[in-house]
């Protein structure tokens, strides 16, 4: 790949992902300035390493992986991942039916977008990122596995825990609202 072709190809592939990368970065860092620094560093690293990118492979997973790895080595990233509960990710999860006693559909209908966003902020970053990649970026499990550099089984396990944590955060918010108004 020539340098010129490389750079032109990079723009075509990378710029349409700019909004998504920024949104993901802001969710990880929870701070606008840090998100901008993270995206800027991601583009710099990706441009520098674009020669090693294999055409035909998944560019989106490649550049998201760069962003995520850059985040993990940042001060905020190190602090965020230190607080993640240690659970075995290789053990298959026993999926439990979403309880009929927990009227989640009613809860979600009542909860505005801000409440869901607040609940998502409560979810540990290692689970929040997998939710964002699956439900917001609509990546396949394989793409997520490539982005996070983990096996697909781990992706499924983290997704399960992430959704469970999100439900718990929503329920917690609901209880707090009831206490406040009751």
């Amino acid at each position, binding site marked *: 790949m020539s340098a010129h072709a490389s750079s032109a190809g990079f723009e075509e592939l990378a710029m349409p992902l700019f909004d998504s990368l920024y949104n993901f970065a802001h969710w990880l860092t929870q701070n606008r300035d840090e998100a901008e620094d993270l995206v800027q560093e991601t583009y710099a690293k990706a*441009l520098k390493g674009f020669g090693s990118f294999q055409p035909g492979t998944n560019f989106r997973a490649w550049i998201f992986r760069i962003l995520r790895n850059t985040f993990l080595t940042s001060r905020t990233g190190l602090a965020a991942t230190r607080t993640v509960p240690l659970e075995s990710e290789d053990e298959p999860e026993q999926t439990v*039916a979403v309880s*009929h006693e927990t009227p989640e559909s009613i809860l979600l209908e009542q909860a505005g977008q801000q409440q869901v966003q607040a609940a998502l902020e409560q979810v540990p970053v290692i689970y929040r990122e997998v939710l964002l990649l*699956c439900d917001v970026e609509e990546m396949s499990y394989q793409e997520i596995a490539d982005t996070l550099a983990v096996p697909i089984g781990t992706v499924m396990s983290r997704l399960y825990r992430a959704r469970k944590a999100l439900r718990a955060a929503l329920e917690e918010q609901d209880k707090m609202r009831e206490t406040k108004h009751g």
Partner: protein
Amino acid sequence: MADDIWQPKLDQYLDSELSAEEMRGMDAHLRECASCSGDALRRMQLKRATRLAGQRYTPSAEFRRRIERKVAAKSPARRWLWIPALAMAAVVLLVATITVGRWYERSRSEQLLAELADLHVADLASPTPVDVVSSDRHTVKPWFQGKLPFTFDLPELPGTGYTLVGGRVAYLEHEPGAHLLYDVGAHHISVFIFRDRPEIERVFPARDSTRRVLSFHVESWGTGGLRYFVFGDASPEAIQGLSRLLKQAGT
């Protein structure tokens, strides 16, 4: 027993991660099992809420320009041949702007249609798909009074092959609207009516004809400040036929 097989796969089903054969098997199971279809509905609502809530942060225009400049400046060709490169940069910027604009519009329209598909499927999976059950438009239309910040007209149906089943209040991006359910033959068609907004009008231009989305057909138009979506798995002709009747009623 069947629940033990299918229930643990619900998340994979909703994430479209099952094989085609398993997807068909799950479809068949959900049609028969109220417990699993209720569970699937709740999981789908959580997934949809996450998708909407997750699209939260937008970069500033200044930051976008800064990154675009940096990416463009790294091009070796542009560094050495700056005059033609300037023209090329302008073209690239123009193309990028158009591409990003089109990408954004496509992505917005896909997001809206996916949300409508969720509403349609969730409605059909629900044991009570409509809150006002009546084939009489003079019963259904007044039911929405006080529930919606607008009113609308519904067509006369006798002799058309369409039957009004009823309606309920639905939310699209947290905006309330009317969700009406019609039957034609063995098919169910959802009609959604919301207040029109410029951002919706932009991604569903007036010239648009019937589209195909996730195996559904959908027709959309805006009139009198309202936005209509006619959505279902019926044939394009059936969707267009009901759309024509609604357009006539609305004029």
